[in-house]
């Protein structure tokens, strides 16, 4: 997770976000794939509105994840809301036990560790990014699609998810020549409607 944070810092820097914005983003958003998505869209000239919508849509999956993990959280509304911030893909997977139960110690411990590693890693990456040269000469623009492909592979677990992915990619590519920047990626979310039918 720390190295993942370093790569976010480097790529955010390459996309023109400076040093502090990536660190603040990691400390508040703490959801890797949405941060990479937002930064890459902004860096590619897709506009701030598109970047925000894409990132928020990617994070909607934390609503059902939070519901599932709610039983492992303690205290009043404020404390539960704070503890819920530590529920991310990795801590959720590590603490998941048989029968839909969650290991509270593992959930909080892994969540906190990941959080610190993510934020510190981002800072290191953002500062190191300065020392690196031209992002295109280093192939860093190819790092984004490669990263999204790896994240996608982890999400494709069924025929329906594979179909949604293929439809999303096809929609985005076919809309690219005929719509303004940013629209193809957002329009591709319509591909998830194929799941309603089934």
């Amino acid at each position, binding site marked *: 997770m720390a190295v*993942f944070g370093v*790569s976010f810092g480097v790529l955010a820097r390459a996309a*023109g*976000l*400076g040093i502090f*914005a990536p660190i603040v*983003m990691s400390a*508040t*958003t703490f959801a890797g794939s*949405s*941060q990479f998505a937002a930064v890459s*869209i902004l860096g590619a000239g897709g506009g*701030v509105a598109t970047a*925000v919508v*894409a*990132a*928020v849509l990617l*994070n*909607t999956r*934390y*609503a*059902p994840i*939070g*519901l599932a*993990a*709610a039983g492992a959280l303690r205290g009043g509304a404020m404390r*539960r809301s704070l*503890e*819920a*911030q530590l*529920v991310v893909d990795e801590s959720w997977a590590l603490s998941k036990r048989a029968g839909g139960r969650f290991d509270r110690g593992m959930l909080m411990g892994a969540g906190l560790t990941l959080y610190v590693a993510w934020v510190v890693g981002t800072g290191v990456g953002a500062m190191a990014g300065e020392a690196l040269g031209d992002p295109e000469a*280093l*192939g*860093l*623009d*190819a790092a984004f*699609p*490669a*990263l*999204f*492909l*790896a*994240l*996608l592979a982890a999400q494709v677990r069924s025929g329906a*998810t594979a179909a*949604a*992915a293929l*439809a*999303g*990619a096809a*929609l*985005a*590519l076919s809309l690219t020549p005929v719509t*303004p920047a940013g629209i193809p990626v957002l329009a*591709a*979310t319509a591909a*998830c*409607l194929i*799941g*309603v039918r089934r």
Partner: protein
Amino acid sequence: MNGEVWLLVGVVGIATVAIKASGPLLVGGGGLPAGLARLTDLLAPALLAALVATQAFTSDERLVVDERAAGLGAAAVAVALRAPILVTVVVAAAVTAVLRALG
């Protein structure tokens, strides 16, 4: 660009904190309706695939096949071999960088 960056960081941060907190705060009201849960399951794959496609094969609103395609191909091999994410990303960047240097 700077104002846009902070707007992005602020709005995404607030929205994500709210989304993550919503589950534990709303629990007791039951889970998401099954249809909605299916939609959120498919949303991330559709969006991620669109990001892969547009960031590897488009440039200034045109479809292009350049060195990034080779990098993505190398990444696909790495994913198929179950390489860690970081290795996948570095392989893609390295292949792209080497092809650009040669071209």
